[in-house]
């Protein structure tokens, strides 16, 4: 990240270098850039793309313009209305986010389309509600902010707003919530299974972006003196997306640079050169497909020279979660799951009533992973129920169930590849320990726990702060995901083929780690789906054999080996 004070210095210097005309131009585009910063937050961090971002810019602009015109004689009231207008835009965005992201499953495309439609709706309202918005002509002759109403202060005002937004965005990106946004863009399911309400996280990101657009829009009205329907509509929304993409959506300054460079160039060239916009469209497609880092990505080799020195701070040790008074109790009661014509689970009843390691085996399609999906709430029971500590949990949202002390390792190692290993682990530490406003506190990035210390001692690669998780081998990913599940210190731990794809040596160390971890998690129930019989024999206190969605047999290793029913399923029988 570019050094903060350098950015401030350049901002102060710029008007002296480029002259008054360009300073005025850049002042206008500085406000658009503030909105683009918010768009970058949604797209580059949280991984969803609002196509109608101008709605919030224009909404706040109309509100503040209206306030300034109607409180002409009481400029103080009007100034008070500025932050309120911005807040209203942020709130609008948050509510829209909550409404749209509520849809279960893939919502990215739906979100983009609906925000696009909302911007068009906003444009229609702005042009047709003449009495309030002034129709096509918009609101004119809006008085300026007292003391800041001459031409030369346009740059100062915009630059101030922009720097403020950049500071806000920088803080959010650095805070735990920023890590969670980047995490959910990469692997939403994994985050959900750590008990985070991903829909709300996305809505918050959208709300913040709406707030940023709102601040810029609220300042725009008194600064420019006019608000027209174009500010709400499709054109500006599209421009913001293009600028953000070309500048570089993933970085803090990318959207700003994109807006200032492409935006002000466009204002000069779009009328004299007919094919300018066509060129920009082609440029946009190329950037999206081939250079997702945009212009700023080109400066990556220079980064070490400008990067702010990271101060090493003392880690903060969080205490282990309080040991539960009673051991966990998990029961599946006559659960049936059908999807369409397919029955995944058929009146399955299982009871895990003592702490310890249970193994679940069975042929392909027996319903093992479906059983885990049922427990974590990702599959709904058609009939029957799941009880955790004598409370029915079936029917709850997955993140609510996992918050009750459930952790799961997925079959294919599921981590956040583009995050540092340490951030992967930090997310697991936050799971169940931090929520709400605490996620804004950057100190949480320094958390560690006794369990983490021990895991790092056993697997030194986990302490490698500079490395991204994507660089890990398959075996290391399996370990990382297991470590993440353990760090939540769960009462119920579900492991889906933890040894799949591991070499015999890796399997041996994994078994060793599992044994140690289970000793640490006092009172916990550990359920392992495993094909490797060596692992099962080594670990299982009790084995359940599933077949065709139901329970075929249960017992210790010897009982299962002696069972004729199990033999018939595994070796086949003549009948």
């Amino acid at each position, binding site marked *: 990240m570019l050094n903060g004070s350098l950015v401030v210095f350049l901002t102060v210097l710029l008007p002296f270098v480029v002259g008054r005309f360009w300073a005025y131009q850049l002042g206008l585009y500085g406000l658009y850039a503030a909105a683009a910063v918010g768009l970058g937050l949604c797209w580059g961090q949280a991984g969803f793309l609002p196509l109608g971002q101008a709605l919030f810019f224009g909404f706040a602009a109309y509100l503040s313009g209206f306030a300034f015109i109607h409180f002409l004689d009481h400029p103080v009231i009007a100034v008070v209305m500025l932050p309120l207008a911005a807040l209203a835009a942020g709130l609008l965005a948050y509510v829209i986010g909550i409404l749209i992201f509520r849809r279960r499953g893939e919502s990215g495309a739906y979100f983009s389309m609906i925000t696009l439609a909302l911007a068009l709706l906003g444009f229609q309202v702005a042009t047709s509600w003449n009495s309030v918005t002034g129709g096509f002509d918009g609101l004119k002759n809006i008085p300026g902010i007292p003391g800041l109403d001459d031409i030369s202060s346009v740059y100062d005002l915009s630059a101030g707003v922009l720097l403020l937004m950049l500071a806000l965005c920088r803080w959010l990106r650095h805070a735990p919530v920023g890590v969670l946004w980047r995490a959910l863009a990469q692997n939403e399911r994994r985050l959900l299974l750590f008990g985070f309400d991903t829909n709300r996280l996305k809505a918050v990101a959208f709300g913040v972006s709406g707030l940023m657009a709102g601040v810029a829009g609220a300042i725009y009205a008194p600064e420019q003196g006019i608000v027209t329907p174009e500010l709400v509509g499709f054109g500006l929304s599209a421009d913001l997306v293009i600028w953000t993409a070309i500048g570089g959506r993933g970085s803090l300054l990318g959207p700003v640079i994109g807006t200032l460079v492409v935006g002000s160039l466009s204002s000069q060239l779009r009328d004299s050169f007919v094919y300018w916009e066509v060129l920009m469209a082609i440029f946009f497609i190329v950037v999206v497909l081939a250079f997702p880092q945009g212009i700023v990505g080109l400066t990556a080799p220079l980064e070490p020279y400008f990067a702010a020195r990271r101060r090493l701070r003392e880690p903060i040790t969080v205490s282990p979660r309080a040991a539960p008074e009673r051991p966990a109790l998990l029961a599946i009661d006559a659960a049936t799951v059908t999807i369409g*014509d397919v029955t995944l689970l058929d009146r399955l009843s299982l009871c895990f009533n003592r702490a310890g390691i249970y193994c679940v*085996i069975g*042929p*392909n*399609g027996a319903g093992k992973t479906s059983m885990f999906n049922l427990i974590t709430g990702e599959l709904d029971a058609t009939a029957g129920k799941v009880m955790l500590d004598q409370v029915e949990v079936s029917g709850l949202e997955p993140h609510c169930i996992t918050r009750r002390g459930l952790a799961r390792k997925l079959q*294919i*190692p599921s981590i956040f590849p583009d995050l540092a290993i340490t951030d992967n682990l930090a997310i697991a530490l936050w799971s169940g320990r931090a929520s709400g406003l605490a996620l804004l506190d950057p100190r949480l990035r320094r958390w560690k726990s006794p369990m983490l210390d021990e895991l790092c001692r056993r697997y030194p690669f986990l302490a490698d702060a500079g490395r991204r998780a994507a660089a890990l*081998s*398959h075996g290391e*990913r399996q370990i990382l995901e297991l470590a993440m599940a353990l760090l939540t210190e769960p009462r119920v731990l579900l492991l889906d*083929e933890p040894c*799949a*794809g591991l070499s*015999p040596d890796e399997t041996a160390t994994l078994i060793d780690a599992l044994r140690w971890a289970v000793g640490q998690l006092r009172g916990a129930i550990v359920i392992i789906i495993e*094909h*490797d*019989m060596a692992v*099962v024999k080594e670990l299982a206190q009790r084995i359940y054999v599933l077949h065709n969605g139901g329970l075929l047999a249960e017992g210790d290793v010897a009982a*299962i*080996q002696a069972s004729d029913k*199990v*033999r018939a399923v*595994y*070796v*086949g*029988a*003549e*009948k």
Partner: protein
Amino acid sequence: MSAPRLAFDDVTGGYGSTMIVRGASGAVSPGEVLCVLGRNGVGKTTLLKLLFGFLPCRTGAIRFDNCPLGALAPEMRRRIGMTYCPQERPVFDDLSVHDNLTLTRADRRLESFRPYFARFPVLESRLRQHAGTLSGGEKKVLSFVRGLAEDQPLVLLDEPSEGVQWENILEMEAAIKEKTAQGAAFIVVEQNLAFAERIADAYLVMDQGRAVLAGVRATMDRARLLAHLHV
């Protein structure tokens, strides 16, 4: 013994970064049945997917009639003479049984299936039904008939007997023997040892992604075989 129809040597591969099959080798000659045995999850299905080109081989080589297959796409492997009947989702659920059988036949006629209908009369009685309404075993029979009727030199079957009634399993055995007599080669993944013992000329036993045991049926040590199959 003639030159192998299909030979694979030191094949390694899997999904993404997960290597499921590690260095498996084997071969099957015209007129022969190679049975791949092992518990579930040891990589049998993955091996067939590697052989048919659905998954890329990380290492190793596959040769069909002595010609290296490289990264040839599955639809091209079908065109040079390979047939594949998958274990899961063996048929097109949304199509009728008739359409399932004649999908790639220009004339859409059922004449060539008559001998199979004699073996498996259940299919003929269900021609108009959607394949999705068939039972698991009936789907397997449909998939089996579709595969054999393609009359290809090499057939890959993934657990053809799963859920199938014993009488129909015996009919499958007879149909396979008929084809091998005409020179076709089979690679059959099986869980059902009784069926495998009736059809196999050779075994390849897998455990933990590796081929741990191989040999012709007659000389195979049954106790060792069972040790790799049972829990």
